[in-house]
């Protein structure tokens, strides 16, 4: 009953459309199947190669994956009475780590903002230099924080400042890329409107683009802040101080100080959860409010 009243010329026309569409569908299905096949092949072969080169071997080793966490947990559980004290003891170290993360996120975000606006089509001050600024951001992203930190620690000596510079450098590249993608979707009409009043490029960006993109920028920045907390904890392992240094002491000691390791993990987890909650609240406020 929903079928068309098939009659004469109309029916042959419909058949033609059906046939040509079916050809298209078959071609698409073939491509889909091929893609799936290649994907499976790559997965299997990639896994096989990785397993071959692995010193221990995945199939023998994976059962022991949980041994270390289990050791830490059982020891921490035995000494659970001491954990609250340890939390208080390590809290200043956590503050130092968060401090590094906050400073580097701020500096990185400011630098990233400038790089992003300079490398976004339609907004850039010098459109011809867009590729240059893009490559600069690529380089900033490509170099791992830990490499920059090691070099800087070698030159400047250990401490929070080299870690801060290293993380800020990487953050500028990463946020610049994300910012630029958001700014690309911004509405250009307000920018044109401001341009018609004789505004400078900085005025157009600050007053025409930023209000549109601010909520997205903010949420990317807060996400980056979370990542940077973790990054600055890791840099503690190579001599940047903060909670990472304490974690290294606790873990390299081996059994006997696992309660400290557990307390540090708890602190890190708590800090991440705290900032996640905080960021989602402020982001919602910014989107709804005003």
């Amino acid at each position, binding site marked *: 009953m*929903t*079928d068309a009243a*098939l009659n004469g010329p*109309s029916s042959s026309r419909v058949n033609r*459309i059906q046939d040509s*569409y*079916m050809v298209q569908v078959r071609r698409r*299905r073939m491509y889909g199947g091929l893609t799936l096949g290649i994907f499976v092949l790559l997965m299997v072969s990639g896994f096989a190669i990785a397993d071959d080169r692995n010193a221990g071997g995945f199939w023998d080793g994976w059962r022991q994956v949980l041994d270390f966490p289990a050791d830490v947990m059982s020891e921490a559980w035995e000494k659970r009475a001491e954990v609250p004290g340890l939390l208080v003891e390590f809290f200043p170290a956590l503050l130092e780590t968060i401090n590094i993360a906050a400073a580097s996120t701020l500096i990185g975000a400011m630098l990233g903002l400038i790089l992003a606006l300079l490398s976004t089509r339609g907004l850039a001050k010098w459109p011809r230099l867009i590729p240059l600024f893009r490559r600069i951001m690529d380089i900033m992203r490509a170099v791992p924080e830990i490499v920059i930190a090691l070099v800087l620690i070698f030159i400047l000596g250990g401490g929070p400042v080299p870690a801060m510079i290293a993380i800020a450098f990487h953050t500028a590249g990463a946020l610049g890329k994300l910012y630029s993608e958001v700014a690309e979707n911004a509405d250009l009409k307000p920018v044109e409107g401001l341009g018609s009043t004789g505004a400078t490029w900085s005025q157009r960006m600050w007053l025409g683009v930023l209000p549109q993109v601010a909520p997205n920028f903010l949420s990317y920045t807060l996400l980056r802040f979370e990542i940077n907390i973790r990054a600055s904890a890791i840099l503690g392992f190579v001599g940047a101080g903060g909670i990472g240094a304490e974690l290294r002491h606790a873990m390299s000691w081996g059994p006997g100080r696992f309660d400290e390791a557990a307390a540090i993990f708890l602190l890190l987890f708590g800090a991440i959860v705290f900032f996640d909650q905080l960021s989602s609240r402020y982001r919602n406020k910014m989107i709804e409010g005003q």
Partner: protein
Amino acid sequence: MLTLDKLTKTFGDKKAVDNVSFTVDRPMMIGIIGRSGAGKSTVLRMLNRLSDATSGSIKFEGRDITRLKGAERRNWQSRCAMIFQQFNLVPRMDVVSNVLHGTLNRRSTLATMFNLYPDSDIHKAIEILDRLGIAEQAPKRAEALSGGQQQRVAIARALMQDPAIILADEPIASLDPMNAQIVMQALRRIHEEDGRTVVANLHTLDTARRYCDRVVGMRDGRVVFDGTPEQLTTGVARDIYGAGANFSEAATSTEIETLEKTARDYALPA
């Protein structure tokens, strides 16, 4: 066939739909009119179970559909197709795929994720498109079509569901008059040829008059009129829209009927 009984929906302390009751005993084309915020869309959304009723019930062929859950609810939704003001198609997929979405309830999730539909369904989808006069657009992306064509794709998706009821929420509100006429005629034809019930929310009085067998007027969540198009006089319309004596039908429609009876009319204060 279809019975709404004391259907109520509250948002916070505001009653969007207030004690709505009416019965449809045979397939017909029903127009619901009223100004924006009168609760028309909410009624349709509760019929399709896109939103839940606060109290009251909707019975279809003796079964209370307001209490359905999970797979049963989805099954009801597949029998009660919905057409939206903004078409609500997937813009980046081609027209035929959009029409095939009408069969989602019958197919496995995995097969549909990879766009694998039986050939017979694909043929049927194109036949339905041909019935609505847009078979030529079959391989194009939905976003490449004009508004009127997109709305016909949405109707084709609804027909693909092979539904007992078609709900249309302001189907012509974002279309130009020419396309609006084509879409309304398509809905009317579906009612006449397939014997399906069509319930449409409409903005304009003349559309309701011209295409519907029965008109329900809503105001502030309540049904204030329920009758044939002939009974829908200017006075009644004024009541529905809550307009004063200066209300002219031209305000809501393109077809201007005479306003002779102005003096003794129900003119309620707005």
